[in-house]
């Protein structure tokens, strides 16, 4: 019985640790994708500015409240605009940005194929 209790305690502690680790990694993932608006070329994750510190606390709070990554990005986008996100979401203003590489890839492929086809014939 004692052994069972010990095992249960160990299982509980390990489980809690992995839960914390998951929250921490999500927090890191989100803050790495957020631009520090008052420091140049740094993410919120890398910066130690007052602004970045507050954002880190806020992200942690929101994760513990059960908000998803998308909801947190949406919240910050509403406050500071698209610029705060390093990876802008697909939308009216960003469709060109997202589609241009695909378009170039398809066109490039088509050109290569055409050249091969012409050479073969």
């Amino acid at each position, binding site marked *: 019985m004692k052994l069972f209790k010990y095992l249960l305690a160990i299982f509980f502690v390990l489980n809690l640790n992995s839960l914390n680790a998951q929250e921490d990694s999500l927090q890191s993932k989100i803050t790495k994708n957020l631009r520090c*608006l*008052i420091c140049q070329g740094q993410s919120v994750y890398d910066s130690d500015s007052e602004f970045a510190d507050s954002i880190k606390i806020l992200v942690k709070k929101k994760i513990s409240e059960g908000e998803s990554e998308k909801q947190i990005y949406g919240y910050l986008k509403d406050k500071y605009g698209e610029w705060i996100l390093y990876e802008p979401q697909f939308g009216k203003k960003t469709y060109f940005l997202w589609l241009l590489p695909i378009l*170039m890839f398809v066109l490039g492929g088509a*050109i290569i194929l055409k050249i091969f086809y012409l050479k073969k014939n």
Partner: protein
Amino acid sequence: MKSKTLPTFLITIFIIIFYIFYKGLQNPNIYTPDINIKKDIPNFKTKVFDTNNIINSNEIFKENKFYLVNIWASWCAPCRDEHIFLMKLYKQKNLEIIGINYKDKNDNAKSFLNELSNPYKLILSDQDGTIAIEWGAYGVPETFLVYERKIIKKIIGPINNNSLLEIQKLIK
């Protein structure tokens, strides 16, 4: 004729891409916030500076009244510079100034107000800076003019003579 199509097409694509990148280079890479946006004020709960009582933002802002929300801290030098303008605005009858004390020590904040006098009707405490984030602020000092629960003017940095005149004009 057929052989010319491909080079023409490639050159056109190249020119378009060059134009996009060239335009992109001209864009500033420093964030320039939009200061003329009409946004709803945020809903939040925080501590009142003097009493430590929890207050909901809905209890603070009433309709048909102008409010000036000023984020300040005793350690912030520009806050000292703008204080004289806040004292001028304090005399305006149709305006209430709400202070948000940002990441500050209570004793330091109190001595700051004792030294320069208190223009605030109410001071809210923002120990971790998250209330400032709710307002979409970047740091201190920052000021928001609120009317009908909407932010009608945002001042980033200290209030100066021009912004004072602008506020006075807006609340007339």
